[in-house]
């Protein structure tokens, strides 16, 4: 048996863009082992016992927060959730002061979700703990991309050469950006599809193909990752109506029958706007692996928390 050459040395996980293919593969391999832990009678290991992990969520989230909390608890870490609605953020405390206060509490890791791109970078420059980006504005959502790729690999047994289409509001989506990085680094062929007004500038320079046609996005696709459409984008005049969006980009049984392969996988980061990006019956259909994504999310996050705690430890030595 040959030993795994990849090593984890990073102290923070701020994005996928700065990871190598080997580092991504390492996380995925570790996640598989953590998924086995989750299937045990006692789905808990003492690996992070005595460590304190703070969930700093400055943006609303249920599933990501719950997933991280569960992952930390399964590793026997102590967790603390700071939710912006009940914390002193409302009293006008700046991110800088919040960082200082957390630092004074001597915690080990901060999992942060924030509405501004670069907020986890800002934090990582001001605290000694490790920082995990759980979503920063429109920039990245690394653990989402990792669990997405994990889910694909599990179902399709490979990533390289697969055709993956990401459909929706690409311009405002951190999930899209992180997925593009992860998929291209692992050798997938990525297409992004959505209205031109929701397509960010020069996105093709990241290595993906751009199309405004749902037909092109679906034809020969092995996987589609369908993004949530936020209602406020319509109010800002970025597209005429939800109705028009659904007619041109909505995933329905008809559109799948027309263009999709029989073994297509449908993913969605959640929460789903049923009837908008996905029709009511598709979310629960045989194509959908949306619930697998949720299960895999805990395992992937366990892998990330474990590797970061080891990486930080090694730096100290």
């Amino acid at each position, binding site marked *: 048996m040959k030993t795994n050459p*990849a090593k984890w040395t990073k102290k923070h996980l701020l994005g996928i863009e700065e990871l190598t293919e080997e580092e991504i593969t390492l996380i995925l391999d*570790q996640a598989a*082992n953590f998924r*086995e*832990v989750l299937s*045990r009678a*006692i789905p808990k290991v*003492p690996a992070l016992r005595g460590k304190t992990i703070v969930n700093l969520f400055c943006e609303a989230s249920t599933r990501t927060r719950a997933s991280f909390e569960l992952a930390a608890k399964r*590793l026997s870490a102590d967790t603390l959730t700071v939710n912006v609605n009940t914390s002193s953020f409302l009293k006008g405390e700046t991110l800088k002061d919040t960082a200082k206060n957390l630092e004074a509490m001597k915690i080990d890791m901060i999992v942060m979700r924030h509405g501004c791109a670069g907020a986890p970078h800002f934090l990582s420059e001001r605290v000694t703990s490790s920082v995990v980006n759980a979503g920063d504005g429109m920039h990245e959502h690394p653990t989402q991309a990792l669990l997405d790729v994990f889910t694909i690999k599990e179902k399709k047994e490979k990533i390289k050469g697969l055709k993956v289409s990401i459909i929706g509001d690409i311009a405002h989506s951190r999930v899209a950006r992180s997925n593009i990085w992860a998929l291209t680094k692992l050798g997938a062929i990525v297409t992004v599809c959505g209205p031109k007004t929701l397509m960010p500038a020069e996105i093709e320079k990241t290595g993906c193909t751009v199309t405004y046609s749902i037909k092109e996005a679906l034809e020969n696709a092995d996987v589609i990752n369908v993004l949530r459409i936020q209602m406020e984008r319509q109010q800002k005049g970025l597209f005429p109506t939800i109705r028009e969006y659904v007619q041109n980009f909505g995933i329905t049984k008809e559109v799948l029958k027309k263009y999709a392969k029989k073994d297509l996988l449908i993913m969605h980061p959640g929460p789903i706007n049923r009837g908008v990006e996905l029709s009511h019956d598709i979310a629960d259909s045989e194509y959908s692996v949306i619930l697998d994504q949720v299960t895999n999310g805990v395992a992937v996050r366990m892998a990330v928390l474990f590797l970061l705690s080891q990486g930080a430890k090694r730096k100290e030595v």
Partner: protein
Amino acid sequence: MCPDDKRGEIEMSTTSRILDEAGIKRTLMRMSHEIIEKNQGTERLVVIGIKTRGAFLAERIAGNIKEIEGKEVPVGAIDINLYRDDLTETAGQPVVRSTDIGFDINKKKVILVDDVLFSGRTVRCALDELIDFGRPEAIQLAVLVDRGHRELPIRPDFVGKNIPTAKTESVEVRLKETDNDQEEVLVIHA
């Protein structure tokens, strides 16, 4: 005057071979006999090795037991990386391998197998992990080499070879599944 350079050319460490391939084979066979003898047969016996080398030794012991008694004994392997304390010897990489126990360990007699017993911390991790899997009737420890210097009250039930060592020395077990084709047990003197 030139300093005596010759000193720098002498090897900094010397290696003694304690067991060769044949020696390992015989030792494992003798241990397998002992396991069967002490447990008066193979009833409720399971063999679980500590990854990486302990797992391969466990496979061989189970194979030997089948040869001796004609009975299949379930074999499993555990990875203890999620149960380490800071002082457990690491191979240097913070990675987790898979744990494969495909059977119920409740009320079973577990033969826990590892290659080298040293401080005892690795075995302590393995005990904690096994107890999270279920409640075995008993856990018996089988090691190929006991090199002394225990830091915890852990003692082996079956020993291949007792090798008294200095703390500065290291003991290496080389198996064909993990290292090279020449199997041996070495003591490397600092």
